[in-house]
C-alpha cells in the first residue's frame, strides 16, 4: 500500500491550470524532495496532498484512503509557512489542544514528551506570543510530529529555522525514516533536502518534469537536475 498517491491531479485557478496532470506515488519509508522554482506549483501540490485544497480533477489518497477521510488525516502531519499555533496559548496548551484533536490516548503526556524533545520543556507555560522565532519554529515542529503521523508534509521547512531548530528537525526526520514513515518536503535548500531524500520530483510550471530516485550525481551536483530537466 503506497503511503501517498496522487493520480491525474489538476488544479485550476479560473481557467488557468496551476497543476497539470500530476501523478506520483510515494512508498512508505521514502523521503521525497519536491523541487521547483517559485510559482511552479510546489505549495499548491502540498496543500492538495494535505487535504487543505481540493484538486479540480484527479484524486489523492493517503495509505489507500481518500485524503479527506478522518482516518487518513489522523496520519498526516503538516508544516507550512505559518507556524499554526495559537499566540494567546502557552506551548503546553497548544500541544495539549492538538493532541486532543488528534484523539491521542494521553494528550497530557504526549504534550509534555514533545515539549521535551524539541527543547521547550523549560518554557512550556510561556505564551507563544513571547517566544523567539526559533522557539516558535520548534513548537511548530512539535505540533507536526506530535501525533506520530505516518506521513509528513513539509513546505520549505528549513527556511527561517535557526540552527537549533534545524538540528531538531533533521533528527526527527532521520528518526521518521528509520520508523518507515514517509516524508515529502518541498524546498529551495537543495543541499539539506538532497541529503535526506531518497526520491526527487521536479515541478515545472505545474507539470511533473522529473520523478525518480535520488542519484549520487544529484548529491554531488545539486544543480544537475535543474540543468537537465529544468527550463533553459
Amino acid at each position, binding site marked *: 500500500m503506497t503511503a501517498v498517491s496522487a493520480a491525474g491531479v489538476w488544479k485550476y485557478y479560473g481557467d488557468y491550470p496551476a497543476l497539470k496532470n500530476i501523478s506520483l506515488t510515494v512508498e512508505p519509508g521514502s523521503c521525497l524532495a519536491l523541487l521547483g522554482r517559485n510559482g511552479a506549483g510546489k505549495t499548491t501540490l502540498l496543500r492538495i496532498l494535505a*487535504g487543505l485544497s481540493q484538486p479540480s480533477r484527479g484524486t489523492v489518497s493517503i495509505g489507500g484512503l481518500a485524503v479527506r477521510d478522518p482516518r487518513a488525516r489522523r496520519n498526516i502531519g503538516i508544516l507550512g509557512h505559518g507556524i499554526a499555533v495559537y499566540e494567546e496559548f502557552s506551548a503546553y496548551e497548544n500541544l495539549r489542544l492538538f493532541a486532543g*484533536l488528534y484523539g491521542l490516548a494521553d494528550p497530557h503526556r504526549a504534550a509534555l514528551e514533545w515539549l521535551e524533545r524539541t527543547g521547550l520543556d523549560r518554557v512550556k507555560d510561556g505564551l507563544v506570543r513571547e517566544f523567539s522565532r526559533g522557539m516558535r519554529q520548534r513548537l511548530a515542529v512539535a*505540533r507536526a510530529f506530535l501525533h506520530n503521523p505516518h506521513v509528513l508534509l513539509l513546505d520549505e521547512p528549513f527556511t527561517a529555522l535557526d540552527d537549533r531548530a534545524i538540528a531538531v528537525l533533521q533528527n526527527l526526520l532521520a528518526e521518521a525514516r528509520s520508523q518507515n514513515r514517509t516524508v515529502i518536503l518541498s524546498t529551495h535548500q537543495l543541499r539539506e533536502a538532497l541529503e535526506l531524500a531518497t526520491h526527487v520530483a521536479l515541478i515545472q510550471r505545474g507539470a511533473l518534469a522529473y520523478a525518480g530516485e535520488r542519484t549520487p550525481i544529484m548529491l554531488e551536483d545539486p544543480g544537475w537536475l535543474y540543468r537537465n530537466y529544468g527550463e533553459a
Partner: protein
Amino acid sequence: MSFFRHSVQIASKDLRAELRTKEALNASLSFALVILLLFSFAFDPTAEQTREISGGLLWLVFAFAGALILNRSFARELTNDCLDALVASPVSGPALFTGKCLANMALLVAVELICLPVFGIFYNVRWAHRFWPLLLTLILGTWGITVVGTVFSALTVNLRLRELMLPTLVYPLLIPALMAAIQLTTGLLAGQPLAAELTNWLKLLIGFDIIFTALALGLVETVLMG
C-alpha cells in the same frame, strides 16, 4: 462520537482564547451598552413608545454587537495559519463549525444577558417577570444569528473588507429571524402570553433555526476547503 468531542474541544478552545484576551467580548459589550444608552438619551421615549420599540431596539443592538463577535470567530484562526492546522486535522468541517457556533452563542448570550437588565433600568421596563420565555426567545434568536453569522464568518475570513462583507451578507438573510425575535420580545415585554399569535412567531423562529442550521452544516465543508 468524535463529532461531539471535537465540537466541544473547539468550543472550549475558542472560549478560553476569548476569555484570555476579551477583545471581542469587550468590543461587543461596550458597543451594545453605548447604543442602548444613546438611544435612551436621544429619543427619550415615553413608556408607551418604549413598549412598542423594545423588541426592535434590543434585537438591533444584539445583531450589531453580535457581528463583532462573529467576525472574530474565524478571523482568530488566520494568525499563523492556524486554520490550516485545524482543517488538516481529523476535525470535520461540521464539527469545527458547531464548536465555533457554541462558543459564539455563549459569548453573545452573555452579552445579551448583561444588556437586558441595563435596558430594564434605563428604559424603565419590567422584564424579570417574563424571564423564562424571554430567555427562550434570546436563545432561539441568537442561535439563528450565530449559525448564519458563523458560516459566513468562515466564508468571508480571507476576503478584502471582511468587516464590511459579513454584515452586508448576513443581515438581509437574518431578517425573518430578527423579525420573529422582535415580535416575540415586544409581545412578551408588553405582557402578552406565549400563546396564539406569539407562538406562530416562535414556530417561525424554530423553523428558521432548523433550516439554516441544516444548510450551514451541509455547506460548511465546501466553504472551508480551498
